[in-house]
């Protein structure tokens, strides 16, 4: 049996250096082990089936083969499989398959209109860019894995027993001596540092402070005085599962310690992978679950054994993490969907044109003797013309998509935009955006210097599309730093005047005068906890606590002269006014989220009295007050404090009779070692002791909100982003925080609806009532939020998914309390299933699944380790950035470091809007002009499929000329940050993504297809008409163009394409109609128009824009001059000849004027007389006048006295019948309504966390 260690031993020094091979000591254990080894393997399999595993401590021979190693691999590829796998992935996108098909068709010389290089070049380029990006990402993953895998971990290799205590570090050989009994100490020699990946199940791992835990460990010893140490034995534990809150295992010891006693192990005895060891000099643990994430061998094996064996990552976190799916952005998804549709459309066009071409060929071309169509043609002859058109139309897919997105934007903004974006640029742009995030100085955490980082570079544009932000609470919204502020001791309120009880003279006097109530209160504060005091050499005492609440209480007690000095195993030293008092801790009745209280049983060493000290939430402590005591004052105090936004704790105590304790103690021990339902049994036993309490008072603790959180949330909510708070905290706390950080608008605008219930029926009823209310209030400008707890959520998700989904859609705000990690993930999934874009932000391991599930995951690398940020798409540092973010910019996300990303900075937001603009708007302007010209040209070339442009120009045009301006348009800003901060609503209008929800999708899709048809296919349709007459005369062409011109004038691109085309063929008619010249004139026309279009659509010209737009134009001429100088090139001398002709330049100017005039006029007209909201803001901003906005966000006054708002949680008495299901259902609300205070002043200090007591241990 293990016993708690005494500090004295642990700190005593090593007396003699241990030898590495100790001949005699291990014999006893070796012998006993062999007993257990028999049939070990067979039993192991069996045990897996029976959901148990036996971990033989420090027994390397056996465990190696049975469990996986600890290698972490997040890599997607290996050197060998990179090419096939990456290609496979790329080709699993429809778009790429299509391109490949086209490229393959190009290889058939009979049908290819242009040199295959014009397709293969860009295709290979696109693929190379994507592959390089993937490879780079994977390489980075490999590096970080490698770093994690090769991190040195000290592992105990030889089990050597020795009578030594303490530990010593000798360079590379570290020796750990862990004490077992007072009688026997065990010495382990840590022979070497191994790499983290080599840790095996059963290894004893030795960690120092700030080390990251490499795998799930059962703690066997720490430097802490109360650290518990176990000797060799076997740990009997369940098979790995994903529940990070439970670990019900037992430790059996080998002889000579075997005394039939079983040590219970719980989750408290474990440290989980990826946590950091803090506040502890060293710790020792046995690896019980190791993890590798995607070992290929394991994957292979798991196919065979998956039913029997647990392979892969077996750590709790690894299992609860789930397999992340690759994230597709809204745009990606849309592109794939659209491509399919357009492909079909294209086939129609191709068939029609193909038939037309074949008909023309048969009726006309056979008469054109100079073409020499053979009389007999091979069977595939009929296919040739359609396939040629397919190739010509292949440009259409990217175009039409862009076109469609363009229309999407036009639909939104009533404005046609002409920016070209093709797929190459798309990837580059995304990466550039990601880079901007990395670079941004305003998103750097000033405290730690951690910059934010975009791990996933592919989803940048979705940041602008976020509709739901799901956020964790503690650590994200709040600082997770508690400060004791007020208290109420037996009816007397302290700290009410000054706002700080520690400065309240009355309280100080009471302490000095030794008022028994006050002393008892402070004693409970000081010792009813699991805090560990650390005394430094200078004598200063610091406290290390798991729970911030406890730490706050202990600190406060110390300030009030009851100083918790030392914890020596069971002995607590308290210093009170210079005299030392000792208490012996007999039992600790731990905190659980169900009990919501914790107690300790101590023996006063002076008097020998046994005392029960309790602290806990009011609703769990006050009902257990002794019969005679009036608790009214206390509940009033709780109310009052809760309204101030403080967390409250009730403190109580009771003296126990020796007999009573003894009897209870044995029951407690028994309950503690049950394997089944342990938690429940323990709780039940605890309950038996915690009654007839003497309530001492109420302590109020403040948990500060992160700076700027309310403002940030306000801003983001105005921007149309919906907030859901998913927390493991209890309902009241969650609601309070929600109120104080603007989740819910103040009364009378805001309203909270509660869904609760323990049974299906109750939940169902409550859900329906809430839904009803929601539907009714939908039309009102009311801010309705619903609150649901984990239990009800479970039921709702399981049985009433439909209703709950409807609710989720209706409600802009939701608070989910007591949510487990998997519930968080489920909620994200729910929202995603409704086609909403979600962003999840969190800082802890319990947020990992949610972060991975969300479209965008933001992880805060804060105090809770790096798990969240590793899993996230974007990781951000800690809180200072938020402050900066808020002060200087629109912010964004929130957090204790923990930001919400909404605007990490203004630009960012802007760039989001902008980005969506580019993505959605980017209408491959160039290509469409080209396509239109090309297809127009097809009439006059007898529908034979000749390309107007030569291969080189075509390729260069696609890859080059059109990409650069787009890349620069990344830098374009519609609005300045300041404007956006003042008008966050504008973001809402930029969220084209909103249009993508199912209800509008159909209409939108129809429209975009229509436009695509008009633009791309128009010519095709006209061709049909023209070909009907089987004459393809220039006159017909003119008519066709005119027809198109009138019909499609709405669509800028078709219009401009026609301008280029018509002007070119007329200006270069007759003796000038030489093919190379005409094509170059048309191409130059396209380039000129493109430059003008980009220029007119650019909102802000920086040097880069100028460089790109005009430099591009110059580059065009430079490149063409060079090519024209090569005699071997097809276009030898062409460019020189053209540039010498006045008519060329006159034509260019005409094209620009004719093409841009209407666009400019239209733009001006819309800009002035049909202004979009962005336009108005742009005007306001650029005219330099003061921007007046009634909707702007003023900094919330921070002084305590001001601004008493009338917000309250709905109270039954002030509601009509419909509102009944409000918080009246909760005991809390009833109690509150009975209370006197109806006025809240939550906003008196927005940075305060308002909350009633939740619990003393943070578990969300």
């Amino acid at each position, binding site marked *: 049996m293990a016993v708690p260690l005494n500090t004295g031993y642990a700190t005593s020094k090593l007396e003699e250096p241990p030898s590495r091979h100790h001949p005699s000591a291990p014999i006893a254990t070796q012998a006993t082990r062999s007993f257990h080894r028999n049939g070990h393997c067979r039993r192991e399999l069996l045990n897996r089936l029976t959901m148990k595993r036996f971990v033989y401590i420090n027994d390397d021979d056996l465990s190696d083969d049975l469990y996986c190693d600890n290698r972490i691999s997040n890599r997607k590829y290996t050197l060998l499989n990179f090419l096939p796998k990456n290609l496979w992935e790329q080709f699993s996108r429809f778009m790429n398959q299509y391109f490949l098909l086209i490229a393959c068709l190009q290889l058939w010389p009979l049908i290819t209109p242009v040199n295959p290089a014009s397709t293969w070049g860009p295709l290979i380029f696109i693929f190379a860019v994507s592959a390089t990006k993937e490879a780079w990402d994977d390489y980075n993953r490999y590096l970080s894995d490698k770093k994690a895998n090769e991190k040195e971990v000290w592992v105990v290799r030889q089990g050597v027993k020795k009578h030594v205590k303490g530990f010593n570090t000798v360079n590379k050989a570290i020796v750990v001596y862990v004490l077992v009994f007072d009688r026997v100490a065990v010495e382990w020699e840590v022979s070497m540092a191994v790499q983290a990946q080599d840790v095996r199940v059963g290894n004893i791992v030795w960690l120092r402070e700030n080390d990251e835990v490499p795998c799930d460990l059962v703690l066997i010893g720490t430097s802490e005085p109360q650290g518990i140490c176990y000797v060799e034995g076997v740990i009997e534990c369940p098979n790995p599962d994903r529940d990070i809150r439970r670990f019900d295992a037992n430790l059996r010891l080998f002889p000579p310690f075997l005394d039939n006693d079983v040590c219970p192990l719980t989750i408290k005895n474990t440290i989980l992978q990826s946590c950091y060891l803090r506040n502890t000099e060293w710790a020792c643990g046995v690896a019980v679950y190791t993890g590798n994430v995607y070992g290929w061998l394991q994957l292979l094996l798991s196919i065979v054994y998956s039913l029997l064996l647990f392979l892969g990552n077996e750590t709790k976190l690894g299992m609860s993490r789930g397999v992340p799916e690759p994230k597709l952005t809204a745009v990606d998804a849309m592109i794939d969907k659209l491509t399919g549709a357009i492909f079909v459309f294209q086939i129609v066009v191709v068939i029609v044109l193909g038939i037309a071409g074949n008909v023309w060929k048969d009726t006309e071309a056979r008469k054109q003797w100079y073409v020499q169509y053979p009389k007999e043609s091979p069977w595939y002859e009929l296919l040739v013309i359609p396939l040629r058109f397919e190739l010509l139309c292949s440009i259409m897919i990217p175009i039409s998509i862009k076109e469609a997105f363009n229309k999407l934007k036009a639909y939104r903004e009533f404005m046609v935009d002409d920016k070209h974006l093709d797929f190459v640029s798309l990837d580059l742009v995304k990466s550039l955006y990601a880079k901007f995030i990395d670079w941004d100085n305003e998103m750097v955490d000033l405290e730690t210097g951690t910059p934010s980082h975009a791990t996933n570079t592919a989803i940048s544009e979705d940041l602008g599309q976020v509709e739901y932000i799901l956020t964790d609470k503690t650590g994200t919204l709040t600082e997770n730093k508690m400060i004791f502020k007020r208290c109420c001791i037996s009816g007397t309120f302290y700290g009410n005047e000054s706002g700080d009880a520690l400065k309240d003279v009355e309280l100080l006097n009471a302490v000095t005068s030794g008022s028994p109530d006050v002393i008892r209160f402070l004693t409970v504060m000081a010792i009813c906890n699991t805090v560990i005091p650390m005394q430094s050499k200078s004598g200063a005492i610091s406290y290390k606590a798991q729970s911030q609440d406890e730490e706050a209480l202990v600190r406060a007690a110390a300030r009030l002269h009851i100083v918790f000095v030392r914890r020596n195993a069971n002995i607590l030293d308290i210093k009170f006014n210079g005299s030392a008092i000792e208490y012996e801790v007999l039992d600790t009745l731990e905190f659980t989220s169900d009990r919501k209280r914790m107690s300790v049983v101590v023996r006063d060493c002076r008097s020998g009295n046994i005392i029960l000290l309790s602290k806990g939430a009011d609703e769990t402590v006050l009902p257990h007050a002794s019969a005679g005591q009036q608790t009214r004052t206390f509940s009033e105090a709780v109310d009052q404090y809760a309204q101030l936004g403080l967390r409250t704790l009730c403190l109580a105590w009771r003296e126990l009779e020796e007999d009573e304790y003894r009897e209870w103690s044995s029951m407690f021990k028994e309950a503690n070692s049950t394997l089944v339902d342990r938690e429940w049994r323990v709780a039940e036993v605890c309950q038996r002791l915690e009654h007839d309490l003497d309530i001492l008072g109420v302590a109020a603790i403040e948990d500060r909100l992160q700076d700027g959180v309310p403002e940030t949330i306000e801003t983001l909510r105005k921007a149309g982003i919906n907030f859901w708070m998913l927390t493991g905290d209890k309902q009241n706390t969650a609601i309070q925080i929600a109120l104080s950080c603007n989740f819910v608008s103040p009364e009378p605008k805001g309203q909270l609806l509660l869904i609760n219930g323990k049974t299906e029926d109750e939940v169902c009823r409550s859900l329906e009532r809430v839904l009803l209310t929601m539907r009714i209030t939908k039309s009102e400008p009311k801010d309705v939020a619903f609150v649901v707890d984990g239990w009800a959520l479970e039921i709702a998700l399981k049985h009433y998914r439909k209703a709950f989904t409807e609710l989720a859609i209706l409600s802009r705000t939701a608070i989910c309390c007591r949510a487990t990690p998997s519930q968080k993930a489920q909620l994200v999934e729910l929202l995603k299933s409704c086609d909403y874009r979600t962003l999840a932000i969190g800082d802890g391991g319990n947020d990992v699944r949610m972060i991975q599930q969300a479209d965008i995951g933001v992880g805060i690398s804060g105090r809770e380790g790096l798990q969240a940020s590793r899993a996230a798409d974007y990781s951000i540092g800690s809180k200072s950035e938020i402050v900066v973010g808020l002060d200087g910019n629109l912010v964004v996300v929130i957090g204790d470091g923990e930001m919400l990303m909404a605007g990490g900075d203004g630009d960012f937001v802007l760039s989001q809007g902008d980005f969506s603009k580019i993505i959605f708007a980017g209408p491959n302007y160039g290509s469409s002009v080209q396509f239109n010209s090309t297809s127009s040209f097809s009439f*006059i070339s007898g529908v034979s499929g000749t390309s107007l442009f030569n291969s080189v120009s075509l390729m260069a045009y696609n890859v080059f000329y059109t990409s650069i301006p787009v890349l620069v348009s990344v830098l374009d800003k519609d609005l300045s940050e300041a404007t956006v901060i003042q008008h966050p609503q504008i973001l809402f209008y930029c969220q084209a993504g909103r249009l993508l929800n199912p209800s509008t999708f159909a209409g939108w899709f129809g429209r975009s297809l229509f436009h695509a048809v008009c633009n791309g296919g128009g010519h095709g349709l006209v061709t049909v008409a023209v070909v009907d007459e089987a004459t393809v005369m220039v006159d017909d062409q003119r008519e066709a163009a005119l027809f198109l011109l009138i019909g499609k004038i709405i669509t800028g691109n078709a219009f401009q394409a026609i301008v280029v085309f018509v002007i070119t063929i007329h200006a270069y008619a007759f003796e000038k109609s030489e*093919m190379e010249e005409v094509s170059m004139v048309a191409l130059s026309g396209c380039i000129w128009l493109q430059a003008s279009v980009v220029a007119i659509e650019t909102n802000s010209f920086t040097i880069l824009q100028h460089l790109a737009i005009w430099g591009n134009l110059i580059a065009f001429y430079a490149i063409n001059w060079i090519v024209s100088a090569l005699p071997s090139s097809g276009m030898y001398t062409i460019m020189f000849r053209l540039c010498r002709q006045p008519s060329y330049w006159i034509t260019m100017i005409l094209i620009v004027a004719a093409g841009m005039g209407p666009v400019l006029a239209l733009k001006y007209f819309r800009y002035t007389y049909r202004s979009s909201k962005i336009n108005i803001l742009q005007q306001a901003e650029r005219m330099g006048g003061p921007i007046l906005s009634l909707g702007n966000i003023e900094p919330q006054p921070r002084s305590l006295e001001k601004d008493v708002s009338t917000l309250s949680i709905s109270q039954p008495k002030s509601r009509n019948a419909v509102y009944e299901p409000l918080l009246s259902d909760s005991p809390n609300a009833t109690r509150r309504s009975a209370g006197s205070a109806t006025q809240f002043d939550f906003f008196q200090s927005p940075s305060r966390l308002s909350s009633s007591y939740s619990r003393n241990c943070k578990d969300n």
Partner: protein
Amino acid sequence: MDAVAMYQFTQQSLPACKPVLTPAWVTTTFFLVGALFIPIGLVSLHASHSVVEIVDRYDSECVPDLFKSNKVVYIKDMSIHKNCSRHLKVHKHMKAPIFIYYQLDNYYQNHRRYVKSRSDQQLLHGLQHNDTSSCTPEESSNGLPIVPCGLIAWSLFNDTYSFSRGTHKLRVNRKNIAWKSDRNHKFGKQVYPFNFQNGTLIGGGKLDPNIPLSDQEDLIVWMRTAALPSFRKLYGRIEEDLNVDDVVVVNLLNNYNTYSFGGTKKLVLSTSSWLGGRNNFLGMAYTSVGFSSILVAFVFLLLHVRNPRPYGDTSCISWNRKSISS
């Protein structure tokens, strides 16, 4: 980029100019465009009108009445003499050089099958270049390669013209009608026609096998394919002035078959201006664009005067309105 600029770039804070479409700016632009374009248009029109052009369609007139109903038989019958003479009246003084073009309509020199059927390498290197697969279906005949190969060369235009004024024969300069770059770099100086038009199917004109391709300017002109189905190609230049009321007699050989596909042939005599031949399009386009610009400018001016809109009035934004009403 220096450090400051790099910083500004990474922080997305490069100094930027943000133009606003103000009424003054836009209206002025349109006025300016109008003011600039109308004169240019008028100048262009003037240039175009200064060009004197005589167009004579001769394809049907040159068919004897006997064959009017069956022109294809006429043109394909090698035994019939294809002589034809046309009288062109000069209605305006024409200054030398006068360009002689032949114009074909409804002729698809841009047909894919046609355009591709040539071998630039062979034109430059002659028989040394063996790969003439691109020339199908006119790559070889009787088992021997054809130089120049391909449909384009094979269908060479072969009507010929000679001009006289009264009894005086006009001198026609048929040199330098092709691009110099083509003569020097695209068509070989040592490449002679070989096995050309020897097949069963005779296309267009024949070539003198003793003249290198670089001097076969008719061929070079013909092989610069036209982008449009209606095109003119240079035949030669008359290097003396023609006076008003002169009658130019054209003796032509009507050899080329446009009858089977309903094409037309025209003879064009034209002078030239700085803008090229007679083409009103640019002038008309410029004037109309100019006038429209001024019109648009007026409309905008009127709109602005009658209905001035405050710029950047954020109170118009709907959410602000909402918050006023609430």
